[in-house]
Structures are given as structure tokens and as C-alpha cells.
């Protein structure tokens, strides 16, 4: 098993409070890692650091054979990784243009971008939404549009912040299917959540965050069965 990226000595203080203090975290390539942790444990903060959006006080990055301080690695992290917010933000435009945003930034022509978007929408079963105004979508639809918008850019790592929070069972099911397919396409995925049961079966690795510190999860591979059999473990 090769690691996509290793981060060492992550320290971050916000408003005089130590929010992150992590010795080392490794994210395996082409697999799905699930990070659990209660509210305020630092999951979102860690994800933003990894995706190059939030500057830590200190951190070293080992990525593609290079060891760099976070500041030097920032443009690479921003380029190769995509972070999805807990409630994804869609621009005030059509769904089609939202998904094409990253393609335009990468210099794709309008015609090529639109063709790719249509294929991607088809992949996600969202073709009927193409010309809708993105601001008017439901939460679950927004989540899946945002996922499609990320996938189309073929990121090296996809960081999903609570992808199924505030979704009904149906939407959770659809999102979890999309994630499953992303994984089978070889995309490395990092998910955080405080509820594990909907995503458990996708995840290959489990990490646990507590007060900004990483603690080993109880076992490296847990199945949904174990969670059901042992309800006390569920309430992490």
C-alpha cells in the first residue's frame, strides 16, 4: 500500500486555542479513508489544511517524493486536491456552468467543457438539472452536483466534509453510490463524519480525531456488522 500524501507535525492555533496537533497522518492512494470525531474535534480544519485552503502554524508535507513545508506545497495541494464543504457552495449560475467552472479554469474551450459536463451529468443521473439555476436546488441535489463538479476535474484526492449530513435516506443512498463509483475509478477519498453507518462500507481505513489529535481507530477495518453488533462503538 502506497501513501498518496503524508503530513507531519501539523500544528494550528486559532484564537489562542490549539485546534490541531497531529504528529503524522498518512493518506493511502486509491482508497477511502474515513475520519471520525465529534463536533469541534477539528475535522473541517484538518481538511482545509490538507487541501491548501487554511494555513497551519506548522506542517510538513511529503507528496510525490518531495518533502515541503506547507507554504511551498500550498499551490500543489490546491491544484491536485478538491475539498467539498459540508454544505457545498454552488455559484449563482446554472448547474451546467457550475460544473464547467473548473474546466474553464483549466483552459478548456466552451464546446469541449459542455460536452464533458453533459457526460458527467449523465454519470451522476443529473442530466435533468443541467439548465436549472444552482441556487434553487435542494441540499441533496447540491451535494451531488458539487460531487460531479469535483469528479470532472479528476482530482488526486477528494476531501468530503460530512457528505451525507442532513440528507434523507434516499439522498444518502444515491450519494454513497456515487462515492462507491468514484472509488472504483481509482480516486483517493478522504471523508469525515460523525455518523459512520452510511459510509462504513465504502471506507478502507479508519482514523479518529479527538480535540485536534489523531488517535488510532479501534481496528483498521471495521464492518457495518460490527457497528450494529456493538452499538456502544457507534456513538463516537
Amino acid at each position, binding site marked *: 500500500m502506497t501513501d498518496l500524501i503524508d503530513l507531519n507535525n501539523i500544528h494550528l492555533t486559532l484564537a489562542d486555542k490549539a485546534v490541531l496537533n497531529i504528529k503524522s497522518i498518512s493518506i493511502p492512494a486509491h482508497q477511502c479513508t474515513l475520519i471520525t470525531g465529534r463536533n469541534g474535534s477539528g475535522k473541517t480544519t484538518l481538511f482545509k489544511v490538507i487541501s491548501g485552503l487554511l494555513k497551519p502554524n506548522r506542517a510538513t508535507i511529503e507528496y510525490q517524493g518531495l518533502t515541503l513545508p506547507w507554504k511551498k506545497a500550498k499551490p500543489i495541494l490546491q491544484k491536485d486536491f478538491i475539498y467539498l464543504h459540508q454544505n457545498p457552495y454552488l455559484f449563482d449560475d446554472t448547474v451546467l456552468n457550475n460544473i464547467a467552472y473548473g474546466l474553464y479554469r483549466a483552459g478548456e474551450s466552451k464546446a469541449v467543457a459542455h460536452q464533458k459536463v453533459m457526460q458527467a451529468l449523465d454519470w451522476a443521473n443529473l442530466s435533468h438539472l443541467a439548465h436549472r439555476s444552482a441556487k434553487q436546488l435542494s441540499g441533496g441535489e447540491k451535494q451531488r452536483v458539487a460531487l460531479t463538479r*469535483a469528479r470532472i476535474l479528476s482530482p488526486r484526492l477528494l476531501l468530503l466534509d460530512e457528505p451525507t449530513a442532513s440528507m434523507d435516506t434516499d439522498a444518502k443512498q444515491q450519494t454513497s453510490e456515487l462515492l462507491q463509483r468514484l472509488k472504483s475509478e481509482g480516486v483517493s477519498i478522504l471523508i469525515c463524519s460523525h455518523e459512520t453507518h452510511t459510509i462504513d462500507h465504502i471506507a478502507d481505513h479508519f482514523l479518529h480525531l479527538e480535540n485536534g489529535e489523531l488517535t488510532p481507530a479501534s481496528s483498521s477495518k471495521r464492518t457495518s456488522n460490527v457497528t450494529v453488533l456493538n452499538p456502544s462503538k457507534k456513538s463516537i
Partner: protein
Amino acid sequence: MNDLSQASLNAFQLLISGNTDIWEIISLSFSVSFSAILIATPFALIIAFCLAFFQFKLRRACIALFNTFMSVPAVIIGLTLYLLLSRSGPLGDLRLLFTHKAMIIGQILLCFPLLVAMAHATFQAADRRAWETAITLGAKPWRAFFTLVYEVRFGLIAAIVAGFGRVIAEIGCSMMVGGNILHSTRNIPTAIALETSKGEFAQGIALGIVLLVLSLSLNAGVSVFQGKGELQQ
């Protein structure tokens, strides 16, 4: 009373008949104020954005400074600029006093703090996720800035219109550094003041109508536009 209604009637006649003097004054007013807003806006937006999105030393002091400068009276800005630009002043060699350019500079100084303060409030209220989403999807910072500007365009347009409203109607600064010279630096407010003091009410009223209609329609336009922005949330 009869005089006044007669003057109002004459005012409408002046406007409709296309009196060249009046329309020259109106177009000068617009060209000066548009230029000022056009030059001030890009810088104001960038500064406002930095104040809202980046942490740096003196950030709070800068915000307080712009908020304070918003309330400096036009005539004080005019006086300061006059002293700077007058023959014996430090910038006297530029020969800018009593020119079009001097009026534009004055109006830029006048609207800049207002633009920054209002745009800052807009960016402050903007969704941080918009910026982060643009960056994570591969936008360079400049591009992400424009994306964000588009996302909060309703608030920014309100700021720009408010800035325009302030400069098109101000008199103190234009009078001092423009000098109210006919065919050269006479704009609507300075012309109203002059014509009224001469007892030429018709021209004063005609220009007053133009200014009033403009202000009312700008404000109405902003209300409609902002309402549209809210509905979309």
C-alpha cells in the same frame, strides 16, 4: 408663487428645447462623476476585499480609517485639494487647479472611503465558501476574486450607486477645485447655486429636476436590484 410656477414652466421649456448651456452642464456633471467612479471602483473593491478576507496587522485600523474618512465634508476635501494644487502648493506645477481633472480627483477622494466601507461590508457578509470553492476548483486568486465579485454583485452595485449619488450631488469640492467656470468646469450643483443666487430660478429648477429624477431613479433601481438579490438566496 406666480413667479415660481412661471419659473418651473420655463425650466421644463429649457430642458425640452435642448438648451445647449444646460445640457452641456449636465453632460459635464456626468462625465466628471462617471470618470471618478470608474477610476475609484477597481481600487476600492480590491482594498475592501483584502480587508474582509485577509488577516494582517493594522487591518482593524484601516477599516476604522475608511469608516471615519467617509464623514469628511466635501468642502474640507475641496479645501485640502485646493491648497495642494494651487500655484504655491506642493502640486502647483501640475497646473490642475480649476480643471476637469481636478474635479475628478476631488470626487475620487470623496467617494473612495464610501466605496471601500460599503464594499467591505458586502465582502464581509459574503460566503467564505465561495472563495474557497473557487480556489479548490483551480481558480487563481485573481480569478477567484472576480468570481466572488460576481457572487456579491448586488451589494457591490448598491455601493457603487451610493458612491455615484454622493459625488454627482456634491457642491463643496467641485466649487473649490473646479471654480464653476462656464463651458469648462460648471456642473449641475455649482450651476444651481450660481443661477439661484443670480435670481435665475428657471435654470436652477431645471437642473434641480434633473438631479432629483436621477437620485430618485438610482435609489429605486438599487432597491429593486437588492430585492432581486435577496429573492435568490
